[in-house]
C-alpha cells in the first residue's frame, strides 16, 4: 500500500489485517522522508533503527495473534521538544545541543506507542517554541509543502509541514499561544489544542508553564481523534494535569452537530481579517447553521495579557542561558526573552488576575452557546522572510500577528480544533472550532460533520518543481 497521504486509520486496519506489515509501512515512510524532506526541512532527526525495531515488535504481535492497538504500525513524529530516548531535545535551539540525550520518552510518545504507533523522528520547530513563523536562524526555515517559498507557521512548524507533505499521518506539537493552530492553518491540516490540563506534558521541554498545551496534528478528523484518545489519561508527572476522566471522542465522532448551539465570534475576531480568512469562517459558519454572533469581552486585552505572561515566564525560564549564552539565541527570540526577564512583577500579577476575570466572562458566553467559530490565522501563509503584512489596511509585523486570533483562546485554556477549509487551487487556511473546557469530543464531532460535508479537508501537497510526488522505487 502507498503510505503517502494514507490515513492512520487505514494503515492500522491494513497492518492489523496483515495486508501489509508494519515494517513495510515504516520503510516506505522513511524513504519518503529521505526523499521529500529535502525540500520541506521538517525533520531534525530521523529515528530509523528505533522505528524499524518497533515495527518488528508490532509485526511479531500480530503474527502471534495479539492485538497491536488502534494505531498499529502508524508512523508518527514529534516536535523536537518531546523527549525521545537517545535523541537530543533541541527545542529548536543551538544551546540545547550540548545537553545529554534523554533516557526515556515523553509520556505522550509512550502512550501513542502503547497504542501501536511508531515514532519515526523528531521535527524542527521555532526556537524554544517562541515563534509563529516556522523560521529558525540555526536550522533554517521549515517550508510550507504547498509552496516552499512560504512559511509553515510555528512554532510546531515541522509538525504541520510533515503532516501536510504526507511524511507521517500524525505529528505531535505544542501550543502555548497558537503553535498547533497556526501551522495547521497555514499548512492545511487539522490540529487539536485540548483543554489546559487534559494531556500530560511530562517529558517535554517547557516554554510558558501556565500556558503550555500539547496536542496532535493530522490530515483527517478520525486520525486526530484516534491520536487524542490514545493520549488521554492522568499523569502524576505533570503537576497541572486535572484529574479528568478519559472521555473517548471516537465513539461519538459521527453523531453530527444536531443539538449543538453554534455561534461565530464577533468583534475582535472580525477585525483585521484578510478576505481568505473571512470567507473561510463564513463557509464553516454556514455549514454549521451558525446564525448567531457572540462577543468574547476584552479579547484584545486578553491577547495583551497572554503576551506579557509569555514574555515574563519565558524570560524567567531562560534567564540562566541569557546570562551565559545570549549570543547563541536566535536573534528573533533573544530580545523578546530578555525584555520579558526584565519586566516588573506587577505586570505579571495583573495579567494573571485578568486571566481569571476573562475566563469567567467567557464561561458566561458558553451558557448560551456550545461551540464558537473563529479564524485561526488572519491570512494565508506569508512568504519566508516577510517581516510585515497588511491587515485591515494597516501594515503590521508578521511574527506576532499570525497568532492574533489564537492567543485569547489558549490564554484561558479552552479546547480548540483547527480545521482546513477546502479551497481548490488556493493556499490553505484554517478556522478554529472552540468549546468550553473539556468539550473536545463535541468539537471533534463538529469537525467530522464539516469534513463529511466536504467543507473542510486537508489538501494533498504536490511535490515542488524538480521532485516527483513519490520517491523512486527501491532496488
Amino acid at each position: 500500500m502507498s503510505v503517502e497521504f494514507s490515513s492512520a486509520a487505514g494503515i492500522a486496519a491494513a497492518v492489523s489485517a496483515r495486508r501489509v506489515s508494519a515494517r513495510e509501512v515504516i520503510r516506505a515512510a522513511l524513504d519518503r522522508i529521505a526523499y521529500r524532506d529535502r525540500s520541506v526541512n521538517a525533520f531534525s532527526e530521523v529515528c530509523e533503527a528505533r522505528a524499524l525495531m518497533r515495527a518488528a515488535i508490532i509485526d511479531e504481535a500480530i503474527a502471534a495473534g495479539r492485538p497491536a492497538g488502534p494505531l498499529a504500525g502508524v508512523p508518527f513524529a514529534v516536535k523536537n521538544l518531546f523527549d525521545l530516548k537517545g535523541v537530543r531535545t533541541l527545542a529548536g535551539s543551538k544551546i540545547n545541543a550540548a545537553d545529554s540525550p534523554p533516557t526515556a520518552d515523553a509520556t505522550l510518545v509512550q502512550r501513542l506507542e502503547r497504542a501501536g504507533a511508531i515514532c519515526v523522528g523528531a521535527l524542527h520547530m521555532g526556537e524554544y517554541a517562541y515563534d509563529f513563523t516556522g523560521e529558525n536562524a540555526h536550522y533554517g526555515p521549515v517550508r510550507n509543502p504547498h509552496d516552499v517559498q512560504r512559511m509553515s507557521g510555528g512554532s510546531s512548524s515541522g509538525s504541520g509541514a510533515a503532516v501536510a507533505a504526507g511524511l507521517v499521518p500524525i505529528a505531535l506539537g505544542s501550543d502555548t499561544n497558537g503553535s498547533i493552530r497556526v501551522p495547521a492553518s497555514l499548512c492545511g491540516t487539522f490540529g487539536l489544542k485540548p483543554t489546559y490540563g487534559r494531556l500530560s506534558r511530562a517529558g517535554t521541554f517547557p516554554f510558558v508553564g501556565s500556558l503550555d498545551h500539547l496536542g496532535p496534528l493530522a490530515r483527517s478528523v478520525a486520525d486526530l481523534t484516534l491520536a487524542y484518545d490514545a493520549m488521554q489519561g492522568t499523569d502524576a508527572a505533570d503537576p497541572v494535569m486535572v484529574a479528568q476522566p478519559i472521555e473517548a471522542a471516537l465513539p461519538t465522532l459521527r453523531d453530527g452537530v444536531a443539538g449543538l448551539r453554534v455561534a461565530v465570534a464577533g468583534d475582535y475576531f472580525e477585525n483585521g481579517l484578510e478576505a481568505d480568512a473571512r470567507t473561510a469562517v463564513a463557509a464553516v459558519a454556514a455549514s454549521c447553521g451558525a446564525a448567531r454572533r457572540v462577543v468574547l469581552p476584552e479579547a484584545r486585552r486578553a491577547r495583551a495579557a497572554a503576551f506579557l505572561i509569555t514574555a515574563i515566564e519565558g524570560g524567567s525560564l531562560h534567564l540562566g542561558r541569557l546570562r551565559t549564552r545570549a549570543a547563541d539565541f536566535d536573534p528573533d527570540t533573544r530580545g523578546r526573552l530578555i525584555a520579558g526577564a526584565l519586566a516588573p512583577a506587577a505586570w505579571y500579577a495583573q495579567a494573571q488576575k485578568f486571566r481569571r476575570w476573562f475566563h469567567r466572562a467567557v464561561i458566561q458566553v458558553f451558557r448560551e452557546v456550545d461551540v464558537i467559530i473563529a479564524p485561526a490565522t488572519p491570512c494565508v501563509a506569508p512568504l519566508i522572510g516577510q517581516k510585515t503584512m497588511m491587515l485591515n489596511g494597516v501594515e503590521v509585523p508578521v511574527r506576532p500577528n499570525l497568532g492574533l486570533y489564537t492567543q485569547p483562546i489558549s490564554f484561558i485554556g479552552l479546547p480548540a480544533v483547527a480545521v482546513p477549509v477546502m479551497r481548490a487551487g488556493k493556499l490553505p487556511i484554517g478556522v478554529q472550532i472552540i468549546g468550553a473546557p473539556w468539550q473536545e469530543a463535541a468539537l471533534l464531532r463538529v469537525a467530522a460533520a464539516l469534513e463529511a460535508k466536504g467543507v473542510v479537508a486537508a489538501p494533498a501537497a504536490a511535490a515542488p518543481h524538480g521532485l516527483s510526488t513519490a520517491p523512486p522505487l527501491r532496488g
Partner: protein
Amino acid sequence: MMDRVKADAAIAVAASVLALDIEAAHCDDVVANYLRLCELAELVLGFPLDDHEDAGPVFTP
C-alpha cells in the same frame, strides 16, 4: 508613557538586579521589545480588577 530614555533606565536597573549583561549589539532589540511590553502592560493594568481576583499562576480551566 514609557519612552526610550525611561526604558533604557528601567532596563539598566533591572538587568543589574538580575546580573544580566546585555551586549551593546543587542540593546536596540531589547529596548524595542521592552517598549512593546510596556504598551501591552498599559492595556492590562488599565483594566479595573477586584482585590480578591485570584492571581494564582497555576491556572485551572
